[in-house]
């Protein structure tokens, strides 16, 4: 291959004249994690609400939750990102739109909102599926005891559904980390964008992308290990989650 390798590029000064390329990459990682975490919190809250709504007996609530999920699931993230950044502020009242645009971290805020909604649709599907997996027997047992519906959800269905959906939620969390890279299209200097910028400035494209890829893999491993620890802690005695129980 006709390519001039230069790993020392990470020690060189980046165009802002203050930081090295390596620091640029690390700051990108910081933005990636910040956007993913903030979006994740939002997705969990909205997703749990929409997911519960999808399992309720009231038809209008179920339909509204269904429409919410379809809306955010069926448009590519790339396009949603663009719409949130460029179109939504124009649709708002003038003052609100201007305020949004003038936010000091407008790309970050937009990315979080967009990732939050996008991911919440997926979380909602998981949560609903988790609850439905229990819907027959456990719900009836709780109701037969005299619990009302909110109590049945609070004390029986949700704690169990949480354990069921934890593995798929883990992969959604990994997804949101990866998806945050799409925010580069609205100017958020997250990890992939930093790698891109480095290669644009220095033309050391393979070094930049290799470093970014490895950072993603490391984050991925750390998150997977962390979530597995959580799963083990929450595993119920006597189920397959706890080795040697039966």
């Amino acid at each position, binding site marked *: 291959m006709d390519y001039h390798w230069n790993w020392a590029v990470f020690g060189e000064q980046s165009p802002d*004249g203050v930081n090295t390329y390596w620091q640029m990459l690390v700051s990108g990682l910081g933005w990636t994690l910040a956007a993913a975490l903030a979006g994740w919190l939002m997705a969990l809250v909205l997703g749990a609400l929409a997911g519960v709504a999808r399992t309720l007996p009231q038809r209008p609530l179920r339909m509204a939750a269904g429409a919410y999920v379809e809306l955010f699931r069926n448009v590519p993230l790339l396009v949603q990102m663009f719409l949130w950044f460029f179109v939504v502020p124009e649709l708002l009242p003038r003052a609100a739109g201007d305020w949004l645009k003038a936010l000091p971290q407008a790309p970050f805020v937009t990315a979080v909102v967009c990732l939050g909604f996008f991911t919440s649709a997926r979380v909602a599907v998981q949560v609903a599926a988790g609850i439905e997996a229990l819907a027959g027997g456990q719900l009836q047992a709780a109701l037969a005891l005299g619990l009302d519906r909110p109590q049945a959800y609070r004390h029986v269905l949700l704690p169990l559904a949480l354990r069921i959906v934890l593995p798929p939620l883990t992969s959604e969390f990994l997804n949101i980390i990866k998806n945050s890279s799409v925010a580069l299209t609205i100017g958020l200097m997250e990890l992939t*964008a930093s790698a891109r910028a480095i290669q*644009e400035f220095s033309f050391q494209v393979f070094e930049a992308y290799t470093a970014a890829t490895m950072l993603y893999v490391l984050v991925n491993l750390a998150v997977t290990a962390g979530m597995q620890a959580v799963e083990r802690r929450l595993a119920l005695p006597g189920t397959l989650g706890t080795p040697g129980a039966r």
Partner: protein
Amino acid sequence: LPGTPHAQALSGTLAKVGRDGYITLGVREGSVPFSYLDDNGRFIGYSVDLCMKIVDEVRKRLNRQVEVRMTPVSASNRIPLMANGTIDLECGSTTNNAERARQVAFSPTIFVIANRLLTRKAANIRTLADMKGKTLVATAGTTTLKQMTALNRERNLGMRIVIGKDHPESFLMLETNRANAAANDDILLAAQVAGSKQPADYAIGAEALSLEPYGIMLRRGDAPFKAAVDAAIRAAFASPDFPRLYAKWFTSPIPPKGINLNVPMSPQLKKVVASPTDSPDPAAYR
């Protein structure tokens, strides 16, 4: 190969093209008027025309038919695609600078741009100094962004610099008031204004913030091919047809919408045409 007496003696790109019978040009989709798609799905532009002259030179040197293939490239894949041999020439609007020259070689400079500010006329911003404390947009990964970051610090302007994914998005940021000014290569700004909804609303600043040479990219360390490229560009510049070629793209209506950019030849480009150079140093063009 029969009919190609030089082929055995050649190495690198020329050998490859001689053997395969085709050359692949990396082209851009939206670098008006250097390299872009017209309504018929063909890639056209000033850089593409110059590249075709290089192809003619290659045909002459190899003494055989050479088919031309075009592959669209983007800012993020042009280097790998050149390194792995997918493209042989990049015909776009790529700035030649010292850092990049470590990785690839460039043809003699084909155009010289200045970085300038694009503003709304109503905002009354004339120079970079007027931008103190305001918001500036530049495109991700461009040398302009690099330049503006440096100037912001040197001159202590306290500007907020936001980043657009590509040139149209940077312009959109200005258009939707997310930024007070857009910094970019003046020729690209001219193209954007000409194509915008209200061209009369915008002004391109007079202050040239830097000079940058554009070149056609080829693989490094490929002397025979570089010689052919150099010869082709020199010949094109020396040709009496060159003013017409320039006029075709910069001072006449161009496809697809028939907009006229109206950018006469700058003194810097005149100097380059008179004495071609592939220097990445901006000082060489003052």
